[in-house]
C-alpha cells in the first residue's frame, strides 16, 4: 500500500502530463460515447413527441351500422384515458351543384361531413378557415373552386334516394388532413391508398342529422359514423415502444367491442413511420460517433505509449531492487485505475455539460441514457486498463530491454502487413458496399404495420472497414515510401533543414515506425473530422433541399388565383434580403378523369429562386430538362405514374382540361409530353404536371400566379415577415418560410436534429486533430530528449535542433492531413451513399465544408507549432542539464 502511494505520488510529481493526457483520452472516449447515448435517447424521445404532435386525430373508430356509440365510448374509457372524443357523421351524396352568375356547375359524387361545434376546438388541425367563419355550412376549398361558390351562395345536395336539399355557404375551409380524414378504415396494411374525395361539404352536426338521418334509413351503406379520439399521451419515449404500446391499446378497444367497430389507428401509423427514422438516427449517431471513440482510444494508448521508455526504466529500477512482477502489475493497475477513474469522471462531466448545452432537453435523464453512460464508463475503464496495464505487463515480462525498443531499427514487418489486413479490410468494405447497393441501400427494415424492425448494422462494416483499411494501407504506403524515398525526402526537407536535410531524412527514415504511427493517428483524426463535417454539411444541405421541396423555396407566398398575387411581384422582389424571386402558377388540370395539380413555371429562371435538383426529373438532369421545357412552349413534364397509365412516349400530344378564366369552364388544351417529373417544389407526393407558365396563361386567359417563390439572401424568417406585410391585404394569402417548414416536417429523417450531435462531434474532431498533431511530438519524447542532448553536446545550434522538429512536424502534419482528407471524403461519400434513403431527394454530390476544413487545418497547424515550440523549449535548457539524458 505504501509502495502504491509512493508510486502515485511520484507519478503526480514527475509525470503529471502523462497521467492527465491518458485521462483526457479516456475522458474523450467516455464523453463521446455517453453523449451519443444521450443524443440517441433524446432524439428518439423528440421523434416520438413530434410524431404524436403531427397526428390530428389519434384514432378514427368507425362504427358498424347499428352500433351504439356509447358502448364504444365505454370501451375506450376502459382501455385508456383520452383528452378528446367526438362523433363525426359521413354521408355519401350523388352530387353537389351550384348556380352562380347564371351558370350551373355540378360535381360528381361527394361527401358531406357532420361535425359538432366543439370539433374544431378539440381537433384544430383538421379545419383551416380560408374565407368566412367556421360555423355553419363550410365548403372545402377545391369544391368551392369547382362550384365557383363563395360566401352566401347556395349549394344543392343530391342525396341518395331522397329529394335534393339546398344549403347556404357560410365559409370556405381547407382540410389539411383530408387523406386521413377520409381514409378507408379497416383495410389491410399495404392496400392501395384511397384518394380523398374532391367534393366535400361540412355541416353542423344537428343539420347533418336532420338531412342525412333519413338517408341512413333509406341507404344505410351510404352513411357511417366515426368516433374521433385523442388519447392521453403518456407513452414510452422511443417511437418503437410507443408504437407497440399504442397498437396494444387499440387492440384492447377492438377486443372489447368485438367487431362492432374498427379502429383506424393514425397514431400507431405515425409512430410506425417514426420508428424507422429513429433506427436510422441511432445508426447515424453511432456511425458518426464511432470513429471518434476509436480515435479517443488510440489517443489514450498513444499517450500511454509515450511513457514506455520511462516506464521500462522505472520497472528495471524496481526489479533490481527486488520488486516482483506481481507487485509491478499491481502498481500499473493502480495507475490504470487512476487514469480510468479520473477519465470516467471527467468524461461523464463533459457528456453532462454537452447534453445540457447541446442535446435535446432531458436527454441525460432518461433510463436509456443512463445505460449508455454506464456502458461508456465501462468502456473507459477497459480503455485505461488496455492502454496502461497491458504495456506495463508486457514490459514487465519482457526479459530484454532491447526487445521493447521498437522506435528505431530495421524491425520486422508487422503481422497485419504480412497478412495484408489492409487489403482484406478494403475488400470487405467494397463487398459490403456492393451488396448494400444491390439492395437499393435498404439499411433499416421496419415493415409497415409490423412491430418487429431491424437495422442492417453489418452495412456499416463498409465505412468502418474503409476507414481502418484505408488507414492501414496508408501506413503500409507511408512506411514503404519512407523506406525507399530517402532522396525525395531529403529534397523535400532541404528548405527546412538545409545542410542537415540528409541527416534528418535518414533519422526520419529509421524512425518510420514512429513517424508512420504519428501520420496515421493524425490521418485518422483528420478523416474523422472531415467525414463528419462533409456528411453533416451534405445532410444539412439536403435537409434544406428537402424543406425547399416542401415549402417551395426559402420563402413561399401563396394566394388564390383571384387574389392578384402577381401584382405584388415587383414589391416582393424589392424587399431587402430577397434574392431571386419568381412567380409560379398552381392550377388544376384533368388528365382523363383524374384531376392533377399543374404548375406553370418560368423554366429559365425558376432555378435561381429555388433548388432544381437533378433527382426531381426522370432524366436525372435538371438543367437539360428545364432547357427542353423552355424550348418547347407547349411542353409538359408528367409524373411517371401518369406516363405509365397513359402509355406516353416523348413527343406525344397530351390533351389536358384546364379551367378557362373567362367562362370558368374546363377546356381541352393540347400539350407535348417531353419528360418525367418526380418531385417539384410545393408539389404533392402523388401525380402532378409541370408546364410553361406563358403557355398556360395564353391558353386559359389568365396570367395569374398563385405562388411566388423567393430566395432569401440571409434569414428566410425575416424575409417571410417582410413578405407578409406586402401581401397582407390579399385575401387568402399565405407566407411560409424554410425554417418553419423544416421544423414541421416530421416524417423525414432529415428533420432529425443532428445539429447538436454534429456540433459536438465537430468540436470533438477539432480537439482530436489538435491533440493528435500535438501528441506526435510527445510520442517519442524520451528518445527525442536524448537525441537533442547528444546534438547539443556536439554543438548543434537552436536552429539546427529545430530542423529535426520542424521536419518531423511537417512530415507528420502534411502526410496525416493528406491521407486523412482522402479517407475522410471517401468515408463521407460512402456514408452518404449508404444512407441514400435518408435523403429526399438524394444528394448529387458531397457538400464541402470549407470553413470547417479551414478551422481543422488551422487547429492542426497551431497545435503542431505549439508542440514543436514546446519541444524546442526543452532544447533551450543548459547543455549540462541535457547531458543527463544521454
Amino acid at each position, binding site marked *: 500500500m505504501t509502495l502504491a502511494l509512493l508510486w502515485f505520488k511520484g507519478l503526480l510529481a514527475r509525470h503529471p502530463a502523462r497521467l492527465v493526457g491518458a485521462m483526457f483520452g479516456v475522458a474523450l472516449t467516455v464523453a463521446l460515447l455517453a453523449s451519443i447515448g444521450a443524443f440517441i435517447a433524446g432524439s428518439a424521445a423528440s421523434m416520438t413527441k413530434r410524431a404524436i404532435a403531427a397526428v390530428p386525430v389519434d384514432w378514427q373508430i368507425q362504427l358498424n351500422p347499428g352500433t351504439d356509440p356509447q358502448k364504444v365510448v365505454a370501451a375506450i374509457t376502459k382501455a385508456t384515458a383520452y383528452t378528446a372524443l367526438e362523433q363525426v357523421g359521413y354521408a355519401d351524396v350523388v352530387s353537389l351543384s351550384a348556380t352562380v352568375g347564371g351558370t350551373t356547375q355540378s360535381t360528381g359524387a361527394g361527401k358531406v361531413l357532420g361535425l359538432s361545434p366543439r370539433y374544431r376546438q378539440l381537433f384544430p388541425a383538421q379545419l383551416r378557415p380560408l374565407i368566412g367563419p367556421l360555423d355553419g355550412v363550410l365548403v372545402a376549398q377545391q369544391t368551392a373552386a369547382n362550384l365557383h361558390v363563395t360566401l352566401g351562395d347556395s349549394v344543392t345536395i343530391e342525396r341518395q334516394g331522397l329529394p335534393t336539399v339546398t344549403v347556404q355557404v357560410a365559409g370556405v375551409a381547407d382540410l389539411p388532413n383530408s387523406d386521413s380524414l377520409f381514409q378507408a378504415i379497416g383495410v389491410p396494411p399495404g392496400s392501395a391508398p384511397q384518394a380523398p374525395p374532391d367534393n366535400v361539404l361540412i355541416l353542423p352536426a344537428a343539420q347533418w342529422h336532420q338531412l342525412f338521418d333519413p338517408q341512413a334509413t333509406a341507404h344505410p351503406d351510404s352513411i357511417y359514423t366515426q368516433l374521433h379520439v385523442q388519447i392521453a399521451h403518456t407513452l414510452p419515449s422511443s417511437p418503437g415502444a410507443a408504437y407497440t404500446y399504442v397498437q396494444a391499446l387499440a387492440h384492447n378497444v377492438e377486443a372489447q367491442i368485438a367487431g362492432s367497430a374498427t379502429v383506424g389507428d393514425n397514431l400507431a401509423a405515425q409512430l410506425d413511420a417514426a420508428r424507422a427514422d429513429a433506427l436510422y438516427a441511432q445508426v447515424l449517431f453511432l456511425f458518426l460517433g464511432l470513429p471518434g471513440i476509436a480515435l479517443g482510444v488510440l489517443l489514450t494508448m498513444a499517450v500511454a505509449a509515450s511513457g514506455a521508455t520511462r516506464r521500462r526504466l522505472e520497472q528495471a529500477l524496481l526489479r533490481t531492487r527486488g520488486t516482483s512482477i506481481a507487485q509491478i502489475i499491481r502498481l500499473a493497475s493502480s495507475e490504470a485505475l487512476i487514469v480510468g477513474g479520473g477519465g470516467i469522471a471527467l468524461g461523464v462531466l463533459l457528456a453532462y455539460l454537452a447534453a445540457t448545452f447541446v442535446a435535446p432537453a432531458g436527454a441525460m435523464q432518461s433510463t436509456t441514457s443512463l445505460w449508455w453512460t454506464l456502458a461508456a464508463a465501462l468502456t473507459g475503464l477497459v480503455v485505461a486498463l488496455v492502454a496502461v496495464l497491458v504495456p506495463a505487463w508486457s514490459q514487465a515480462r519482457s526479459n530484454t530491454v*532491447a526487445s521493447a*525498443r521498437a*522506435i*528505431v*531499427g*530495421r524491425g520486422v514487418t508487422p503481422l497485419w502487413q504480412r497478412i495484408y489486413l489492409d487489403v482484406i479490410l478494403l475488400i470487405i468494405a467494397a463487398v459490403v458496399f456492393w451488396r448494400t447497393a444491390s439492395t437499393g441501400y435498404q439499411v433499416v427494415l421496419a415493415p409497415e404495420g409490423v412491430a418487429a424492425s431491424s437495422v442492417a448494422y453489418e452495412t456499416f462494416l463498409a465505412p468502418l472497414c474503409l476507414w481502418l483499411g484505408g488507414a492501414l494501407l496508408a501506413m503500409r504506403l507511408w512506411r514503404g515510401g519512407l523506406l525507399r524515398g530517402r532522396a525525395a525526402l531529403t529534397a523535400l526537407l532541404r528548405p527546412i533543414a538545409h*545542410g*542537415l536535410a*540528409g*541527416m534528418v531524412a*535518414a*533519422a*526520419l*527514415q*529509421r*524512425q518510420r515506425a514512429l513517424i508512420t504511427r504519428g501520420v496515421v493517428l493524425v490521418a485518422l483524426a483528420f478523416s474523422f473530422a472531415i467525414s463528419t463535417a462533409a456528411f453533416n454539411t451534405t445532410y444539412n444541405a439536403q435537409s434544406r433541399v428537402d424543406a425547399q421541396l416542401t415549402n417551395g423555396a426559402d420563402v413561399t407566398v401563396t394566394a388564390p388565383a383571384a387574389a392578384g398575387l402577381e401584382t405584388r411581384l415587383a414589391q416582393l422582389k424589392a424587399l431587402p434580403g430577397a434574392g431571386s424571386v419568381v412567380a409560379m402558377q398552381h392550377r388544376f388540370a384533368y388528365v382523363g378523369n383524374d384531376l392533377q395539380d399543374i404548375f406553370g413555371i418560368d423554366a429559365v429562371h425558376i432555378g435561381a429562386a429555388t433548388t432544381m435538383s437533378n433527382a426531381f426529373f426522370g432524366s436525372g438532369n435538371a438543367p437539360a430538362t428545364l432547357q427542353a421545357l423552355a424550348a418547347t412552349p407547349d411542353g409538359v413534364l408528367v409524373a411517371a405514374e401518369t406516363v405509365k397509365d397513359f402509355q406516353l412516349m416523348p413527343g406525344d400530344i397530351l390533351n389536358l382540361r384546364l379551367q378557362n378564366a373567362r367562362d370558368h369552364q374546363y377546356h381541352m388544351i393540347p400539350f407535348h409530353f417531353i419528360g418525367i417529373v418526380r418531385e417539384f417544389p410545393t408539389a404533392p407526393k402523388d401525380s402532378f404536371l409541370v408546364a410553361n407558365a406563358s403557355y398556360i396563361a395564353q391558353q386559359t386567359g389568365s396570367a395569374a400566379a398563385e405562388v411566388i417563390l423567393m430566395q432569401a439572401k440571409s434569414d428566410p424568417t425575416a424575409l417571410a415577415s417582410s413578405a407578409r406585410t406586402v401581401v397582407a391585404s390579399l385575401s387568402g394569402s399565405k407566407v411560409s418560410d424554410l425554417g418553419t417548414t423544416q421544423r414541421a416536417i416530421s416524417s423525414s429523417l432529415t428533420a432529425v436534429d443532428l445539429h447538436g450531435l454534429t456540433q459536438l462531434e465537430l468540436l470533438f474532431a477539432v480537439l482530436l486533430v489538435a491533440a493528435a498533431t500535438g501528441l506526435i511530438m510527445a510520442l517519442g519524447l524520451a*528518445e527525442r530528449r*536524448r*537525441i537533442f542532448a*547528444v*546534438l547539443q*553536446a*556536439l*554543438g*548543434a*545550434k537552436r536552429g*539546427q535542433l529545430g530542423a529535426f522538429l520542424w521536419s518531423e512536424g511537417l512530415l507528420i502534419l502534411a502526410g496525416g492531413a493528406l491521407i486523412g482528407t482522402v479517407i475522410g471524403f471517401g468515408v463521407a461519400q460512402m456514408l452518404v451513399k449508404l444512407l441514400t434513403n435518408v435523403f429526399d431527394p438524394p444528394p448529387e454530390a458531397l457538400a464541402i465544408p470549407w470553413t470547417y476544413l479551414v478551422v481543422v487545418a488551422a487547429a492542426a497547424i497551431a497545435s503542431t507549432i505549439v508542440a514543436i515550440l514546446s519541444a524546442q523549449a526543452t532544447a533551450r535548457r*543548459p*547543455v*549540462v542539464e541535457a*547531458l543527463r539524458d*544521454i
Partner: protein
Amino acid sequence: MSQIHVPTENSSIQAQTAQRMRAGTSPDKRSGLMLADAQQVGRTYPTGNGSSSNQVPALVSATCQIMASDRIALVGPSGSGKSTLLHLLGGLDVPTSGTINWPALGGRETLRPSRIAFVFQMPSLIAPLSVVENVEVPLLLGKASADEARAAALDALERIELRSIADKLPEELSGGQAQRVAVARALAYQPALILADEPTGQLDRPTAQHLFDVLLNALAGTPTALVVATHDLQIAERLETMWHMHHGILEVSA
C-alpha cells in the same frame, strides 16, 4: 594515414600546430599554442529547493592550461569534480567563479562542433542514424557539405578500424564498438581538443584498453590535445600528464 581537408576555421590552428611540430618545437609542448586557460575556476549548483543561498560546490578551484598536442589524464574519485571541469573546459558550462579562456580557439560559442570534441561515458550515439551518419553529425553541424562530411566520416572510421560497420545502427553495436564510434565522431572534425569523460567507464578492461589504443593511435602525430577524465589508473598512466582532483580542487603536475 590520410588527412581529410575539412574547410573550417580550425584548419589554421591545426596548420600552425603542425608547422610548429615540423619545426621541431614539439618536445616543449608547454610553450606551444594554448588551447584553454582556466584561472581559479569554480562551479556551484543550487540545491534541490532552487534557493540561491544554498549552493553546492561541484568544483572549488581549478587553474590549468591545455596546450596543443597535450595528453592529459584527469584522475580522482567519483564526485571530485572531474566532469564539471571537463564541461567548463569544453564550454558546455559557465564557471560561477574564476575565468576561463580559449586563446587559440576563440570564444565559448565557437568551440563546438569544430574545435573541441567530447567523448562521453554513456553511449551517446543517435539511435536513428547509422554509424557513418553519427560520425558525420559534427561535420554537418559545422556546415560541411554532405560529400565532405561523408568522406571525413569514413576516413575517421577507417582510422579506428570500423569502416566495416559504417552502415550498422547503434542498437546493433556492442558497448565497445559504440564507444569507438563515439571516438571516431570526435576525431572526424580533427578538433584541436578532445575531452573524454570516463570513455571506458562502462567497458571491461580489455575492451577499455583496446579503445584507448585506438584513440591514442589515431591521435599519434596530430596536434590535437586530449584530456581524459578517468579513475582507471592503468589508463591514466598511459598519458604524459596526470592532473588530480580532490574534493573539487585540481592539482596539476607533470
